[in-house]
């Protein structure tokens, strides 16, 4: 418990210090609140307008929770397929890397033309940003099995499926989870961006509304909510990792 506290307090102090400087700077330099509201203003606003923003938060959360599993699922399937079919990997892996030079956000307007304003283009966008970290991490993890264990499995007469299910797959879990954690934060971002492009509810839509009326304080409230959503999703994945990869020795610093 004590060591846990030792880990927690330095960043906590840093955040409090940062907020203090912010608050002080805004009041000393007389920054107008439409340009940069103080942390106090933001806190007050978040209490005052809580009910309105909850509906938007729920919409974004729902979108994220639909898009994230689909995105990571597609990423996993792509990774497994390319891993099990080597010539497919040779053919597609470079294209996969290249495809990441296309900013997914730039595809948003196109997706709306193709799929309309409903749920579908938003899910497609989240899938596009989510699948890549998972696919690359999973492929990396699957390909780097321990050579001695691999030799052991082959000499013991293990079939290709046994090698995959008993060696490669469990061995790839730590790598896979680092991909999943990145995807989790991308998923929330993807959902907000999708709502910017075309939506009638959600945190992204809420931000656009507030921008139009220069309510900077409310935009900050929205940002805080986005951060919290990302953190919660990240923490859930980390918990799942802790349980599934419990065999891994803990790092001693």
């Amino acid at each position, binding site marked *: 418990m004590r060591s846990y506290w030792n880990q927690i307090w330095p960043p906590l102090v840093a955040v409090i210090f940062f907020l203090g400087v912010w608050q002080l700077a805004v009041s000393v330099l007389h920054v107008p609140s439409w340009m940069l509201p103080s942390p106090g203003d933001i806190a007050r606003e978040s209490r005052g307008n809580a009910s309105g923003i909850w509906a938007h938060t729920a919409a974004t959360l729902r979108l994220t929770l639909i898009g994230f599993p689909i995105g990571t699922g597609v990423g996993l399937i792509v990774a497994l397929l390319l891993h099990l079919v080597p010539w497919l990997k040779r053919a597609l892996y470079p294209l996969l890397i290249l495809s990441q030079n296309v900013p997914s956000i730039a595809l948003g307007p196109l997706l709306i033309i193709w799929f309309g304003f409903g749920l579908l283009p938003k899910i497609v966008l989240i899938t596009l940003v989510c699948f890549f970290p998972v696919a690359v991490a999973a492929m990396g993890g699957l390909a780097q099995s321990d050579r001695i264990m691999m030799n*052991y499995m082959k000499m013991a007469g293990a079939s290709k499926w046994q090698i995959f299910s008993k060696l490669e797959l*469990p061995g790839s879990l730590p790598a896979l989870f680092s991909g999943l954690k990145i995807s989790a934060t991308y998923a929330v971002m993807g959902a907000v961006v999708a709502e910017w492009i075309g939506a009638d509810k959600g945190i992204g839509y809420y931000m656009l509304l507030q921008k139009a009326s220069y309510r900077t304080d409310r935009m900050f409230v929205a940002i805080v909510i986005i951060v919290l959503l990302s953190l919660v999703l990240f923490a859930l994945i980390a918990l799942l990792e802790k349980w599934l990869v419990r065999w891994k020795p803990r790092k001693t610093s």
Partner: protein
Amino acid sequence: MLAGHPNLNTLEQASSAYMPGAKGAHHALNVDGVSKAFFHRRRETRVLDNVSLTVEPQEFVSIVGPSGCGKSTLFHIIGGLELPDAGTVNMGGKNVTGQRGEISYMPQQPALFPWRTIEDNVLLAGELKGEPKAEARAAARHWLDKVGLGGFERAYPHMLSGGMQQRAAFLRALLAPQELMLLDEPFSALDALTREQMQRWLLELWEENRRSVLFITHNIEEALLLSSRIYVFSGRPGSVLHIVDVPFPRPRRGELTDSLEFLQLRRELSEWMREEQARTTR
């Protein structure tokens, strides 16, 4: 293959009964005239040159040789990971050249699967062969107790010391359904004290439960203590230089290593190894 070396001694002549090609009951393992070369940038490196050796059922046989004598390649060929350029690998009277799953293998590093508990690691070989789990589990429990790993059944490998991990890896090989065990320098990663402990432990265990074993080591003392027969390999390309029948009766004790006869034999083997090392590094 013994010709051309000045140090032929009586032990080698006595071993002529084991020369490859001798007919009789089925050998646990018979490697017959295996050669292997690798090509790298169009340059040929000969690794094994006409290697023949046999392991009889319930016999402990060692291979010693200078580093780079192709011992690992030979294991890969016996294990079916690689095909020889010439020669065959036979087990129990069957030609199994290039076939996998015929041997039980213990690698240099324990290579226990970190996500499996010790018990599940020990059961792996049987599991791969589709053996029923319940009986195997009971046997594994019994054996883990016996080798001093009782209470660690549900532990993960990283919680164990190097010596304990190596014992678990040995048990994994011992409980495998295959008759022949290949032990590839199993103690080379351990410190000297643990190593000595493990040699005596293996000696005792093997004399109680005789299995056919082919054992690779750099350590002459280890080979002499444990084996009934030792194949001394030449440097690259590896070939059989001497065959030594180890005369000490069983059951053997650890104190054997202090006896005069043991020391003499050890000195002789060390001499061969030194010469061979000097010849190949020149």
